[in-house]
Every structure is written in structure tokens, then in C-alpha cells.
């Protein structure tokens, strides 16, 4: 049954990894603007269009 301890340890490590990523992203300002990026990603890349 002690394999459970290992599994719990693994799952918590992974989960904490995600938590750290979340905190880091928030610090980078990822949640400051929830709207603009969704619009921005749909813009076509102008330069490519001209090259074609």
C-alpha cells in the first residue's frame, strides 16, 4: 500500500507545479486583460499577406 504514498507525492508535485505556473502567470499579468488577446489572435499577419 505504500505505493499510494508515492502516487500521492507525485500527484501533489504535479498539482503544485501547476499552481506555481498559475501564480507566475498571474504575476506576469496574464489575467489583467481578459478580452483583448482573444481578439488579437484573430488578426491576420499583414506582412505575410503582402508577400503572397
Amino acid at each position, binding site marked *: *500500500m505504500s505505493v499510494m504514498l508515492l502516487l500521492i507525492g507525485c500527484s501533489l508535485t504535479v498539482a503544485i507545479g501547476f499552481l506555481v505556473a498559475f501564480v507566475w502567470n498571474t504575476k506576469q499579468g496574464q489575467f489583467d486583460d481578459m478580452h483583448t488577446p482573444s481578439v488579437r489572435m484573430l488578426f*491576420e499577419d499583414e506582412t505575410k499577406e503582402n508577400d503572397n
Partner: protein
Amino acid sequence: MGKIISENNTVCYHCGEECRGERIHFHEKDFCCVGCKSVFEILEQNELCTYYSITRSPGVSQQLPRVGSYYDFLDDASVADKLIHFKDGDIFHVKFRIPGMHCSSCIWLLENLHKINTGIQSSRVTFMEKELQVVYNSEETSLKDIVILLKKIGYEPNLSLDDLQAKQQKKESRSQIYKIGIAGFCFGNIMMLSFPDYFAGGHFLNDGMLNHVFNYVSLSLSLPVFFYCAQEFFVSSWQHIKQKRINIDVPIALAILITFCVSIYLIVFEHKLGFLDSMSGIVFFMLLGRFFQNKGYHYLSFQRSYASYLPISVNKWIAGKEVNIPLTAAAIGDQIVIRNNEVIPADALLMNDSAWFDYSFVTGESNWVEKHKNEIIYAGAMLKSSLVNLTISKSPSQSYITQLWNSRLYNKYDANTFFTAERMNLWFSAIVLFLGFAACMYWVGHGEYSVGLKSLITVWIVACPCALLLSTTFTNGNMLTILAGNGMFIKNAAVLEKLRDADTLVFDKTGTLTHSHQSEIDFIGRELKANECEAIFAVANVSIHPLSRRIAKFIDGNVAMDVTDFVSQDGKGISGRANGLHVQLGSQQWLGITTLFSNSFTRVFVAIDKEVAGYFEIRNQYRESIFPLLKSLRNQYDTHLLSGDNDAEKLHLADMFSSTDNLRFHCLPEDKTAYIKSLQSQNHTVVMIGDGLNDANAFEQSDAGIAVIEQDQNYLPACDVILKANRIHRLQKLLQFVGSTNTILYVAFVVSLLYNIIGLSFAMRGLLTPVVAAILMPVSTISIVGISFILSRYFAWKYTLSV
């Protein structure tokens, strides 16, 4: 007679507005005005026409009179320093607030500024905040150039004195996100660790060691929830208890505290699973609810000071030269220059012989006022004549307008205001406490001491008032979102409650019931021939009198015509000869007309070759379907009108309001405040609906102040609710919708009561196990959130609001 040129169905390629009057045809596209066309030209030259393919006609209309702006003061290093928030060698970062930003095309264009000005390295939009951050190389371009470029493409940044006083507060909303994230993380993991125990009934696989590990891991995961995420509940309830008061956070903090302590006891001494999953779940959902309720509309600032209305800079005469200086540097005795449509920045003396001013924003008068040499012009007035010189007589911070502002009353909603839901909540908590004791007594009476203690504690745990609180926060959040989608922006949830209780509506007239930019004008009399129209236009166009200007604008003829023998007689009228015709425009008495007219409208009479042809009637133009709105609101509320204007339209308006006595004209801002105060002293809950600065104090005095704003207006008096002017005719539906909040809350309350009865029935028998709590808590939470979501949308549909 009629419009000289009127082509319907032609829509401006740039801004999408119907082209009225003159239409500009350029590159096979139609434009409504020169402004729109020149924006198009700039974009075309820079190959930025993608702008027009993302959204149809995305531009901002350039038709309204724009104030000429001078940005020389931006070259002043001390001013620029306040706007620039980061410097790295030659690379400067600057943030602008751009009220005109409204669609994806705007984002696209504003983020491609570097294609127009190569000195700009990058520009990024934060749409929800209507902010633009520009990174530029100060060697290649300047702050002034960027501002001018933005203005040229129709996105004039809102620079006001307020912005010169730096403010940054992003931290707060971020800490809220941290808390939610961490609480959610801990909740999920504790839940997962508790799962095996739920099924094994408390003794997971009979393995003591494993059980310990699981419980202690759960305990350590709950620590950040208890000490960090739930902090705000403890802090706020402690602050209230210290002041010997109670608020909604007190029972919640109590429930969290009890759950946590009991769980520690169970884990450490009885080696059993605690209620930690329920506790962190509660904290998580409650934080989520508050976040949803408080997600603000950052770009709408409800608290603006007078400073954001006054111009940021002023042109001053220094040694015979006009120099642009920041307003903060202006001093008493300075000679300044003001042009048409500019706002007077400080109380000042007029140096010219005479000029016209629009005081509507300060006093509510709809008619322009003529001022003569050496008269005082109050700050906030808008010049309606050509260039004038003024001498500043009071510093901007001591002007009349500022005093209006500083006589603010009190903080309307202090933290101790109780609202219906909160009162219900406290009652509920009290009953639960009582039930807990009753159950405990019962068991103690039967000699079952441990069951008694257990039931006491578990009753408090299970009947935590959270479900009800959640229903309030989520319902308010839903309401605010739906209302915002319908053009009504509410400062905070407390205002909803006030709107719901309102029984008296007080309206302002100018700018609220009427359009602020438009007035209706008609010609009544005999048919005018085309050449006569042109002659009238030519004569009217010479005069600077505001009425002549409106008539000229109405006819909209050919500017090139010569006028001879032009005479202007003060207070009487004007006359002149054009197109071979002698034209007189003026008052009834001056033209010797004896017919009696009611004095409800302003009239300008016309005589051609000494023969009276008719008159122009100039009316305030009321907003579309404002009268049906007033008439139906009258049935539901006591409606009043407070106008700073004259009583010319009293008769017209009398039957739109509850009673003729409810109409007041010639109101000073102080009168409005006093009137509302007297209504409130008769126990009415008063909602004030207005627009201008003259309503600012009335907003403050009233229980809820609704500011009606035009699309392009970037200045607002302090208020509680912002209503888009084109939605004012929906006011009744919006208020009815707000009123439905109570129904939703009651339904949610009944449902949460059902869950509580189930939970209590377990708890009072001493049978509440962590499993039962762990099932009840999320189920009740989810059903309440669902009910609030579905019902709020149902009511929105019922009152024909868009969702």
C-alpha cells in the same frame, strides 16, 4: 422648404452614420464629413485599410464639434514625466486612456501605430480598460507627436488633470485572483484525498499510517486556505466586532473558524477525517461569488473630479506670443486665449466686447448666454463665439465649479449599510445558533454528552449562511452583467438595492430629457423659394448670434454669397441684402407682428423685402420616445422635474409628470439638492436622473444618481449609475428588471433553506459525517448558482432586455 440636400440611405464608410446634409465622395466611398474622410486618407496612405475589413464602419464620427486641442504643453518635461510611466534610455513607455475605442478594428489599428509613425516601437491595447500602452523611441518621435497622431486617426486620448496625478492600482484585483486560484487548488486536492475515506466510512483500508498521511496532507493543504484566502472574512468581521457591530462576514468567519478547529481536533486526536474539504470549498465559492459581483467596469470611472472636465492646458499670452502651458501652471492675472467650443478653465474676466457662452453643463440652462466686457465667466462654460481673450481672476482650484464640487456631502454607502439579504442572513444565523443549542440541550438532557457536543458543532458547520450569501453575490453579479449589456452600468451591488427600493424619480431636463447637442428647428409660414432660402442663409451666416448660427446650419446653403447692408441690432435682429433680396431676421416686436403666440418656444421671424414670410421655431429636441416613458413611469413612481432652465416648456411637460407641482424651473444646483432632501425627509427613496455637473450634488444627495451620457462624452459627474443616452427610453424596463432581484433572492433562499433542513436534520441527530457535508455543500452551491443564473436570464427575457 426642407433640407436642401438630403440623400437617405447613404452611410459613411468610416463611421457608419447616415450622411446628412453634405456628402463627400472620395475613392468611390461616401463620407459624412471631412473628418471621417481625412482619417480614411491617413489610413489609406499607410496601407492600413484592413481596419475597415474587420468591422464594418468602425470609425468614430468626426461630425460633432471637436474642441481644437493644443498639445505644445506635452513638450514640457515636467508634464511629460507625469504621463510617461517607464523610461529605459531613449525608450519611453506611456499609457493613454482612449474613450473612443469600441471594437476589434480599433484594437487592430491602435496596435499597428508603428506603421504610421516609425518612432513607435509597439503599442498594446487593454480593451476592457480602454487603455493604450505605447513604447516609443524618444529620439525619433515625441509624446506630442503620438498624441497628435491619435487625434488625427480619431482616437483622441483623454488627457486630464486627473491623469497628471499618477495612480496605479492593479495589485488588488490580482490578489483576488491569487486567492481564488489557491483556494480552488486546495479545495480540489483535499476533496481528492478525502474521497477514499468517504467510501470506506472513515477507516480507509484499515491502514492507520496511510490514513494519517492523507489527513495530515489535507490539513497542510487547508492552511493556506485558512490563513491566506479566508483572510478578508476574518479581517472585516474583526473590524466590525471591535466597533461593536455585526456584518455579514461575522457568521461566515465564525463558521470557517469552527469548521477548521473541529477538523484539527478530529484529525489530531480522533484520527478521523475532518470537514476541511467543505471549509475550503466554501471559501473558494464565496471568493468566486465576490469576484463575479465586483468585477468592475474599470474604464468607467464613477468618481471623477472637476479636474477631468477642465482642459488640461491653456493658451497664454506671453510677450505677445501664444504659448501653450499646462493648466496647473496658470496663475491669477494671466491673459489667456479661448477658441470656439473650448471650455473655460478658470473663473476669468472677459476682455472682448461680447461673446456667447454655453453654461448648460454647469447650470443646466439650455440657452446660450451673452457676456460683455469685464464680466466674470465661470469655469466650465463653453465658448460659443470666435476667439476671445480672458484674464484669469481665480486660480482653477478655487473656481465656482470647484466649489460645487467641494460641497460634497457624505459617503453614501458606508460599510455598515445593511441590505435585505444581509438582514435575512443574520436572522438565519441567529436561528441556526439557537437550533444548535437546542439540539445540544436535548442530547445533554438525555445524558448523551458527546452526541450533544457533536450536534452543536455540526449544526453550525452545516448551516453556514454561505448558500444565501452566494445567492446574493451571484445574483448581483448576473444583474450587473445583464444591465451592462443593456447600456446601464452600476457602480456596485449596493446601488441595486437602492434602485429596487426607489419610489420617486427626479429628472433633470437639459441633456437628460433633451438631446445635448441637437435642437429641433422648423420653418412655419409660406413656402420659401430656393433663392429666398439662400438669401436667408447668407444673412444668418454673417451673424455670430447662436440663433442665427442654428438657422444657418438648418438651411445649410452656399457660403460664397455676398451680403450687403448688413445691420445687427442688439436684442432685436439682423438684416441684410443678399441674392437681390432684403432679409430681416428677428423678434416679433421688431418686425411689428401683432399675432399672439404662446411663449413656449423660441421663435425667429423672417421678413423678405419687408413682407413677413413666417418664422423659425426652435425647440429643445426631446430624446426619442421620452414622453411615453415619462407617462408610464408616472404610474409606478412619483415623478419630478428639476430644471436649471427657464419654464418655457412648462405647459408642454406638465402632463408628463405626476403633478404640476412636481415641476421646478430655474433651479440652482443647491435648489436641486434641497428639493431632494425634502423628498427624502418624507421617507421617499429618491433616484435622480441627470447629466451635467449641475446635477453632481443632486446625485450625491439622492439615494441613487443615474447619469445619462452621450456616446462620445468622456466626462461624467460623480454618480452611482451610468446610463447610455440611447437607452434612456428603456429606463422603466431596466428598473423593473432590477426590481426582480428580490424574487430571485427569495427563490434561492427557499432552495437553500431546503438544503439546510436536510443538513440540519442530520446534524441535530448527531449524524452529520464529513461525507454528508461534502455532498450537500457543492450540490447546494451549484444549484443556487444555477437558479440565480437561469432566473436572472428569464427576467431579462421577460422585460425584453438583451442577454
